[in-house]
C-alpha cells in the first residue's frame, strides 16, 4: 500500500482532519485577497481574474455563439411559421377580393339593367346565367329563374345592351334561353334609319357570333353601324328592342339582300340577364295595333294616290 493510499484511508476513516486542513487553507486563501492598508485591492483576485479571463472569454463566446445559433434557429422557425400564416392569409384575402370584385361586377350589371330606359316600361325578372350549351350546334343558355318567378315560354330575354333571345323551355326554377345567334332563332327586325324610312327584314341566327338580316324589299342605302331593332311583327318580341348593329357591309359595293348584324349584347360573356314578363296577349295586342296602324297608313297612301291621278 502506497503512502497516498494510506493517507486516503486515514482521511476516509477520519475526514475531520482533512476538513480542518482544507478550512485553514481556505482561510489563508481568503486572507490573501486583502492587501494590508489597501482595502480595495485584492491581488489574488487580480491574478485569478487574469488567469480566468481567457477561459471565460472562450466560454462566453462559445455560449453566445450557441445562444445566437439557438435564437436564430427559433427566429427562423418563427419566421417560417409567420410566413406560412401570411401566405394562407394572403390567399384568403385574394379569394375574398375576387369574390368582392365578382359581386361588384354583377351589381353593376344588375344596376345597368334596372336603370336601362329602354326596359323601364316592362315588368321584368333579373336572372343569372348558370349554364351554357356546350354543343356548337345550339346557342342556348340556362338561367336560374323559372315559372315560379313568373317566366313563360317565348318571353324576351335582354341585357342592358340589347336583345339576348327568348325563353324556349321553362321549369319551376330555371329556364332555357335561345340566343339570337342560334340557327333556330328568328325575329322580325327593322333598320331604324329614320322614323319614316324603315327597312323591314327578318333576323336569323347563323350559329356564329353574327346574325343575318334578310330584307323584305331591296334597301336603298345602308351603312355599317346602323341600329337594328325588333319590329314587333313576329308576335314574340315587342317593338323597339335593340338587337344589334349592321356589320361587314362593303360601302362601295351594291347593297345585298341580306346583311350581317352584330348583336348588341355580349352573348359570349353573359352573366346577368332580364326576362321581360310580357304576356303573349300583350304582344298580340301590340301586333294588332301595329297591323292596324300599317293598314291606316296604306289607306292614307291610297287616298292620296287617286287625288294625284285626278289632278
Amino acid at each position, binding site marked *: 500500500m502506497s503512502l497516498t493510499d494510506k493517507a486516503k484511508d486515514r*482521511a476516509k476513516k477520519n475526514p475531520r482532519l482533512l476538513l480542518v486542513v482544507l478550512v485553514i487553507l481556505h482561510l489563508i486563501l481568503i486572507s490573501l485577497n486583502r492587501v494590508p492598508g489597501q482595502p480595495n485591492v485584492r491581488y489574488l483576485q487580480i491574478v485569478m481574474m487574469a488567469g480566468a479571463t481567457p477561459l471565460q472569454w472562450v466560454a462566453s463566446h462559445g455560449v453566445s455563439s450557441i445562444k445566437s445559433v439557438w435564437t436564430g434557429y427559433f427566429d427562423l422557425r418563427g419566421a417560417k411559421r409567420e410566413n406560412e400564416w401570411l401566405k394562407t392569409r394572403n390567399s384568403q384575402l385574394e379569394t375574398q377580393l375576387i369574390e368582392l370584385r365578382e359581386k361588384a361586377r354583377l351589381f353593376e350589371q344588375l344596376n345597368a339593367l334596372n336603370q336601362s330606359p329602354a326596359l323601364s316600361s316592362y315588368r321584368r325578372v333579373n336572372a343569372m346565367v348558370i349554364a351554357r350549351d356546350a354543343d356548337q350546334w345550339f346557342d342556348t343558355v340556362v338561367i336560374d329563374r323559372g315559372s315560379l318567378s313568373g317566366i313563360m315560354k317565348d318571353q324576351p330575354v335582354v341585357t342592358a345592351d340589347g336583345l339576348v333571345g327568348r325563353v324556349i323551355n321553362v321549369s319551376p326554377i330555371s329556364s332555357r334561353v335561345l340566343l339570337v345567334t342560334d340557327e333556330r332563332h328568328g325575329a322580325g327586325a327593322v333598320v331604324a334609319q329614320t322614323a319614316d324610312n324603315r327597312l323591314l327584314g327578318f333576323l336569323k341566327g347563323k350559329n356564329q357570333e353574327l346574325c343575318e338580316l334578310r330584307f323584305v324589299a331591296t334597301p336603298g342605302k345602308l351603312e355599317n353601324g346602323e341600329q337594328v331593332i325588333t319590329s314587333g311583327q313576329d308576335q314574340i318580341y315587342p317593338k323597339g328592342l335593340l338587337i344589334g348593329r349592321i356589320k361587314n357591309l362593303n360601302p362601295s359595293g351594291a347593297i345585298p339582300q341580306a346583311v350581317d348584324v352584330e348583336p348588341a349584347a355580349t352573348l359570349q360573356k353573359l352573366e346577368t340577364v332580364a326576362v321581360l314578363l310580357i304576356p303573349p296577349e300583350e304582344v298580340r295586342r301590340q301586333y294588332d295595333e301595329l297591323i292596324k296602324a300599317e293598314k291606316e297608313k296604306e289607306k292614307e297612301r291610297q287616298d292620296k294616290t287617286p287625288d294625284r291621278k285626278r289632278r
Partner: protein
Amino acid sequence: MQQVPVSAGRWLGHINWLLLVVVYIGLQRDPVKALLTAVFAGIFYDAFSLGRVIGVNGLALVLAAYVADRIAAMIMVDNLIFRFLAVAAGSVINTVVRLFFYGLLKLELPALASGRDIAATIIFDLFANLFASVLLYIALDRVFNKDEGQKVRRMEARRLRPRL
C-alpha cells in the same frame, strides 16, 4: 405576461448547481472525493465570478460537502427525505458562510442590506436548491447508476452459474 419569465429568472438565480453536485458526491460516502470536489468547485466558481473574493465559495462548499458526508455516514438508508435533508443543510451552510465572509470583507451586496434580506436569501436559496435537486439528482442517478442493474444481474448470474 412579462412577470413569469422575470420571476422564474430570479428563482433560477438562487439555484447553486455546483453545491448540488458537491452534495450529491458527498452522499456517495466518500469524504475525500467529496471534499476535494468541493475545493475544486469552489476555486472554479470564484475564478469565474470576477469581482468576488477567492476562497469563500470553496470554504462554503467544503463545509457543505462535509455535512452531506456526515449525514450519509449517520443515516444508512438512501431515500428522498435523506437527500432533501442533506441538500437543505448544505444549502443553508453554503449561504450562511458566503454571506458571513462577504459581510466580513465588507462587500456591498443587496442580500446583506438587512437581517430580513439575509433571511430571505437563505430561504430562497434553500427552496430553489431543494426544487432543483429533485430534477438534477434524477438526471445524475441515470448517468452514474445506469450500470447498477446490469452489475446486479451479472453478480446474480455468477452466483447461480453451475460449478464445473
